[in-house]
């Protein structure tokens, strides 16, 4: 089998299938009874798919604590799956969830960025990077959590999946293939939520699912900024592209049909993604010689 086909099979298709099978198993009740949100076991289903992909793409961590910044993504996937269950049961207690999320993001950002603070970002510069990246990650995740609570149906996971996929190309063209593939894996498992919510327009994706996707994708972006490095503006652009479901709350759109809302939000997401991907691609093909991995 061709190299690229193998990467897609093991890094995206099989993880999505695995996540979908576990999702179906834990959410069987959602089809029988009209639940407010997906089952609390949903983040574990997403984690199963992602961890499979992580194992196939870069292998299991060689040690604990992990040695390499990228290996922390395996740990954060397990941690966010567990934290996602906590968020699911914490329900509408947003302040409690916000505070826990702040501790979570600050702790993981510290663990991952610590080696850079010892050499590249010494002194106050290191603390500024740590504080800034933690704040950005936390704000984005908290915004996503609020969107997911207010917007039922497939829109939120669809947009998150698209942004993780588009972000994967941005990372690929920034010379980081492993982070690109891991972003693709997040896209695949988030995409597995879409068919589950296709016919359940009144069911939200759940705080746990958002915790998993925002936790892992957030750390991929933090890795991209700190270690590749990808310009901060491009990652901020990706984060903005993921917030388009907020348009669904506009009264003018609310009056339209469900498919129109989804189409408009997806179109705006796609336009923002293209505006980030194109310059990245041009910079990639314009630099030096063709490489092609």
């Amino acid at each position, binding site marked *: 089998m061709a190299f690229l086909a193998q990467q897609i099979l093991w890094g995206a298709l099989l993880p999505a299938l695995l996540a979908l099978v576990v999702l179906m198993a834990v959410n069987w009740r959602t089809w029988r009874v009209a639940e407010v949100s997906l089952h609390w076991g949903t983040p574990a289903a997403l984690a199963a798919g992602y961890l499979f992909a992580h194992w196939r793409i870069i292998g299991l961590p060689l040690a604990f604590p992990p040695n*390499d910044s990228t290996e922390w993504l395996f740990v954060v996937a397990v941690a966010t799956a567990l934290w996602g269950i906590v968020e699911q049961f914490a329900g509408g207690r947003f302040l409690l969830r916000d505070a826990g999320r702040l501790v979570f993001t600050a702790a993981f950002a510290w663990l991952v960025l610590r*080696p*850079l603070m010892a050499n590249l970002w010494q002194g106050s510069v290191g603390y500024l990077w740590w504080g800034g990246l933690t704040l950005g990650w936390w704000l984005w995740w908290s915004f996503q959590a609020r969107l997911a609570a207010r917007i039922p149906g497939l829109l939120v996971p669809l947009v998150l999946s698209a942004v993780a996929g588009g972000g994967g190309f941005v990372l690929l063209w920034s010379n*980081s293939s492993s*982070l690109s593939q891991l972003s693709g894996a997040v896209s695949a498992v988030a995409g597995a939520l879409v068919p589950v919510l296709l016919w359940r327009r009144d069911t939200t994706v759940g705080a746990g699912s958002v915790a998993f996707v925002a936790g892992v994708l957030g750390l991929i972006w933090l890795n991209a900024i*700190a*270690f590749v490095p990808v310009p901060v503006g491009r990652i901020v652009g990706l984060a903005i592209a993921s917030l388009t479901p907020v348009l669904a709350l506009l009264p003018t759109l609310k009056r339209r049909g469900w498919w129109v809302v989804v189409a408009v939000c997806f179109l705006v997401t796609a336009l923002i993604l293209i505006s980030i991907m194109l310059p990245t691609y041009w910079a990639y093909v314009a*630099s030096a*010689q063709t490489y092609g991995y």
Partner: protein
Amino acid sequence: MVYNNIGRWMLAVIVSVAFAVMPASAQTYQIDPVHTSLIFRVKHMNTAYIYGRFNQVTGTIVVDERNPARSSVNIEVDANSVYTANEQRDNHLRSPDFFNTRQFPTIRFTSTEVRRVNANTLQVKGNLTMHGVTRPITVNVLLTGKGRNPQGKEIIGFETTFTVRRSEFGMRYGLPGLGDEVRVTLSVEAFR
């Protein structure tokens, strides 16, 4: 009294001449980055070998010819200086897929044991630290020559070739399409 002073004077002269003529037991050389080459090769898609090099190699070599066990080697390689004649590939090698040079900017080798194999060959055991992972390696080092450089400094040259598995250093991206075994050749010129 006069004979006694002459005797002391002669003894001082003999000792001075002896120290000047005999080499010191252990001599410390600085690696000359300009005349040192660190090249590597790795197989691409199980087809052809790609060659690359690191352009910044520094360190010290302590040579004790009478007692090689007292010799030692300390080498530092700037991982950011990786060069494969393709800017994108060099940036990819610096990324977290491979060396992750922002997190691990330096590759180090520190010897732990040196022993003579024959007149021109030494066996050097030591610890190689790369990508944050330290592993023991053993290499045979050939003494390639000694002399003086145009600036009049004493120089000495060594060469070694050895193989490492990058997966053992936590660099597992792209396996098996991009080979696991990396053959490394280090040719050092050091001066004092």
